[in-house]
């Protein structure tokens, strides 16, 4: 794309002006209350400034005035599509801080839940991306049909569909019954068929290819230096998955591959997500098959279930990160030995992945900016915190 000023035929030396418009904050394409301050030259984007904070509620300060367990339900509300992986990161940070061992079965349950969450997130984000492209609601409905089955499982296990509040420090709140495991296995059997159908619908669709290929190309060097993580980073061809790099929880036991893109355009970001779902299915299959019997809570932490306020981790600090569906979700917790954390910080992938939004959009058309934003995959609850 070239940065050419708009000109009418035969009026090449006509004076032109740039146009400044706001996309959002109330606009369906911004996935929430998010505003893009765009300067346009004709239809081409000259500059783009993201403006956020409309959903800011100072999650970090709330957590600093609360018991450690008390902020667990608040982490659900960060990235409200993936409450299980948000819980996972926070639980890991506090476990690191207080040096708590987690029983094996609890690890397995956490991994099952985190991977189910990844399926939920990726399948719906692809639906929303197609919405942004103008394929109005058919892919989203297909995606939500599958998501519904997984949310039913969350409801059965944790009591809520989205705000699960399921993990506790040292384990999980409830055990998985054999019936639930059987139901998960049933979903795993059907999901690949759905994915195939979904791919037939989308992957080779000429309109999708034309709209998405070579749009919003993110070079690998820029992606690394801008701390971009998650499927977006891997679509640019950088092999970095925290599940592999850190081997947290029990991920080293599972066989799975890290799908990579080649160009780093919108299409690669779409396709990497499809491939990641296939890998998640592999992890889930192994986990459901191998899940051991045993405790679901560390013995040390059982008394604190009844009295969260008495849980006082020793003085220290911990940074734990998980590969959330949107990227690296990190929690930085500093304890001063009291029941409330001294400092609590969330490294939100939605927020940091937006750093390079302007670089991706400059020189593109307005309509492309919408799908670039859609392919970044943001959730405003996490972005604004």
């Amino acid at each position: 794309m070239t940065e050419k000023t708009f000109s009418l035929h035969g009026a090449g030396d006509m004076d032109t002006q740039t146009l400044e418009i706001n996309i959002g904050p109330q606009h369906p394409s911004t996935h929430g209350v998010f505003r893009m301050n765009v300067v346009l030259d004709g239809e081409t984007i000259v500059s783009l400034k993201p403006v956020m904070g409309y959903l800011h509620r100072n999650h970090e300060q709330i957590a600093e005035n609360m018991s450690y367990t008390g902020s667990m339900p608040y982490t659900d509300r960060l990235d409200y599509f993936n409450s299980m992986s948000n819980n996972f990161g926070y639980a890991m940070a506090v476990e690191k801080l207080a040096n708590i061992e987690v029983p094996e079965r609890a690890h397995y349950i956490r991994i099952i839940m985190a991977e189910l969450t990844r399926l939920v997130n990726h399948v719906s984000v692809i639906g929303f991306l197609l919405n942004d492209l103008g394929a109005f609601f058919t892919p989203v409905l297909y995606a939500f049909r599958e998501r519904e089955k997984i949310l039913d499982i969350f409801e059965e296990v944790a009591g809520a569909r989205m705000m699960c509040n399921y993990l506790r420090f040292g384990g999980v709140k409830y055990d998985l019954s054999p019936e639930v495991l059987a139901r998960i296995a049933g979903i795993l059997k059907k999901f690949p068929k759905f994915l195939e159908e979904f791919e037939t619908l989308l992957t080779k669709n000429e309109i999708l290819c034309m709209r998405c290929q070579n749009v919003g190309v993110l070079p690998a060097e820029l992606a690394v230096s801008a701390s971009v993580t998650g499927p977006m980073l891997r679509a640019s061809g950088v092999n970095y998955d925290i599940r592999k790099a850190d081997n947290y929880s029990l991920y080293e036991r599972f066989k799975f591959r890290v799908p990579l893109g080649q160009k780093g355009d919108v299409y690669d970001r779409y396709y990497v997500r499809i491939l990641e779902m296939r890998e998640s299915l592999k992890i889930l299959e192994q986990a459901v098959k191998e899940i051991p019997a045993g405790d679901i809570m560390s013995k040390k932490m059982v008394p604190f279930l009844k009295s969260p306020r008495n849980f006082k981790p020793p003085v220290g600090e911990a940074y734990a990160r998980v590969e959330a569906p949107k990227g690296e979700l990190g929690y930085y917790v500093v304890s001063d030995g009291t029941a409330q954390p001294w400092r609590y910080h969330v490294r939100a992938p939605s927020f940091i992945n937006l750093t390079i939004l302007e670089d991706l959009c400059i020189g593109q058309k307005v309509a492309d900016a919408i799908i670039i934003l859609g392919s970044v995959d943001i959730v405003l609850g996490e972005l604004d915190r």
Partner: protein
Amino acid sequence: MLSTADLKTKIEAAIPGTTLKLVRESLLLENPNDLLKVARFLKESDLGLDYLSSVTGADYLTYLESVYHFYSMAQKSGPVVLRVRTDRQNPQIPSLTALYRGAEFQEREAYDMYGIVYEGHPDLRRVFMWEGFEGWPMRKDYQQEDSETLEMADVAWLENQGVKVPEPIKAKAEELEKQGKRALAQKPGQPEPQ
């Protein structure tokens, strides 16, 4: 991956003049002005810490702190935790945005919440709070306005809009005005602000 103590000696040997201190499992940089040099060394030496995962501020009552978590994507190693301290009155720390683009928004967030000025940042504005907001909401001495109690200014505004303010609420606002106090929220578990 080197241990933190080894890393300290390595950095101090490579960049003469810098002094580091061990704080738990992290490195405290004594002079904030050395930050850029140290970060460049971390990025470009064989440590290969090309990925700045997290930048955040923290308030420790007598000083403010900026904490950096570095990882290496190429070598899949890390983290190296670097911390820089600065005083509360005039907090200034060099910006890492030129070296790591990923610091751009995170430094803006730390500025927004703690008022740490990152020198050399291309676009240091508030990111979550609105323009014209006063104060630094994440500092420990920040006094939050009580949204439940009205002040005289609120009452005047409401009456200007044609809303009839109930008498007890108005009396409370007048009382506050007389005492020269503001309607401040009491933080849970903490005594009333002085």
